[in-house]
């Protein structure tokens, strides 16, 4: 590790390090919920989940919580991903890894709902 030579450097390191502990605060600006029932997993929810994580990492966005949950019953639309942001929840259906990356970039980070893939509002 590099030596910390000034208070400014300590502050920068703190800001940076704080992000990695964000998950443990239990709070986040955005909540991403992936349905991971048997049907969801069979439809490829795991790939979707991995794509979401890697896209968040690529863009260094730490203010998101990823929650796995059971099926909503909308088996026809699996994998289903729900994004909760600004007190609004939006459901996306038949999400693929590529779509998931797009959703992260547009909706999760910038707040622009990708309306063409939306199946329901929460």
């Amino acid at each position, binding site marked *: 590790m590099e030596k*910390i030579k000034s208070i400014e450097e300590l502050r920068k390191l703190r800001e940076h390090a704080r992000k990695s502990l964000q998950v443990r605060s239990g709070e986040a600006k955005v909540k991403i919920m992936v349905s991971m029932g048997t049907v969801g997993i069979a439809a490829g929810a795991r790939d979707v989940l991995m794509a979401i994580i890697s896209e968040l990492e690529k863009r260094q966005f730490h203010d998101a919580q990823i929650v796995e949950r059971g099926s909503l019953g909308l088996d026809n639309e699996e994998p289903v991903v729900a994004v909760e942001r600004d007190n609004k929840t939006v459901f996306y259906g038949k999400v693929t890894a590529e779509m998931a990356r797009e959703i992260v970039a547009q909706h999760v980070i910038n707040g622009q709902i990708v309306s063409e893939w939306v199946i329901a509002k929460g």
Partner: protein
Amino acid sequence: MKIYRIHALICAGAQCIAAGGNGFEEALKNELKKHNIEEEVSVVETGCMGACQLGPLLVVYPEGIMYTNVEAKDAKEIVEEHFLKGRPVKRLMWKKEGEEEFPELKDIPFFAKQTKIVLRNCGLINPEDINEYIARDGYKALAKAVAEMEPKDVIDVVKESGLRGRGGAGFPTGLKWSFAANQDSEEKYIICNADEGDPGAYMDRSILEGDPHSVIEGMMITGYAIGSSVGYIYVRAEYPLAVRRLKMAIKQAKQAGLLGKNIFGTNFSFDMVLMMGAGAFVCGEETALINSIEGKRGEPRKKPPFPAISGLFGKPTIINNVETLANLPVIVDKGAKFFKQFGTEKSPGTKVFALAGNVNISGLVEVPMGTSLRKIVFDIGGGIPEGHTFKGALTGGPSGGVIPMEFIDTPVDYESLPDLGTIMGSGGLIIMDERSCMVDVAKFFLKFTVDESCGKCVPCREGTRQMLKILERITLGRGREEDIDRLEKMGELIKLTALCGLGQTAPNPVLSTLKYFKEEYLAHIIDKKCPAGVCQFSALKEGRKKHEAKIAH
């Protein structure tokens, strides 16, 4: 920076490791590998979370779900159900018997009713990663002190905060510092007293294991305040995990340039030496500790001169306890006012207690000073095991005394406890119910001090031994009526005449049990009965036979 979906924090305090925490961690990692989700889940070994009785503990974030008593065989279920399908494993979650709902971590009374200042990071961060300490405002207070404050300002803040030594005596920390700061000496020393020796007490160990950097930062702040550039940590050799984590923390702080020469580009330099304890209880006494570091026999010195004037190698030395030091970064960073909002006027801040004995949830708790014993035992500790009644609580270990039921609402602080004939001590809190014999308890602690007396002064070496003989006699049913009077007289005399704190406080367990449970002593002496059924008078005859055989031999 890597993003993890789940943070799984495993308690890796010594207790939990002893309870089998190690096996679980391995099993968990194997399961993660099997399901190929190693990249999504970060497994972190963290410090003691406090609820030691329910350990090993696992906390899963972001939900903040706590699993108790996890075993290697549970790993599969946790990974497959919770991590993969998002369904927490209910049978392993923290739950009170008969309760239907599963509380969130912050709603569990054991945690909700605590106030964490000293233990702010324990159980939340990885103690082996300096970055996680820095993320939680680590070394911010040191930066503030060396860059923005004069040493005198630092002392003033600590004085203003009212912080008192957490090792037991409760001497105002800022005042002690000012004695050493006023000394005109090229060399001065800081010593961290981590020779925690009270039976049943493990506050300091948990801090060192769970958040070693907070102690290092506290020492450096102290060093800056009094003008010292060398710190010694005197730690029990019986705490291998604490030693390992301290070594690692010192190394990381040095690599980060936070420990060494010209810290933050200022003129302040600080170096640290880790010393293993010599294995004797008396070495926790500050002057004996100094002797031990100097390579001499661990015997106390006469005071005055106090160490702040002439201590290690004859130089001004400040000795602070682990918990005291861990408070300092918070005080310097957030100010005296913040600190004073906790606790009482004369005893501000919080105190960590190691709750043990006959209580439902034993473990480590941190509460504001002045919290009543009732709250600690019944609200946080979950009360006394079913079917039994509270009899007394022993504070201060072998130097302290018993608080009986009638005083259970007394606020626990530095002023109220001495009025009851006990002391705050370093934080050992042993809860007893009607199954405990008070004479036996007094004997146990006196036996401890007799064993640990260094033998330098007569009152402690001979006096405590004679008191122990009387107690042994009483518990064997051979007590005499004048024994009570004799114990009281000897106890008072030893308190007045012993050289160091060990001897001066050694009679406390006897005197305080005599004060509140005299009838129990009388039952032993006159009725030849032990009301609690602990003392075995039948051993009397056999003991005598043995004794006679020994003489004949």
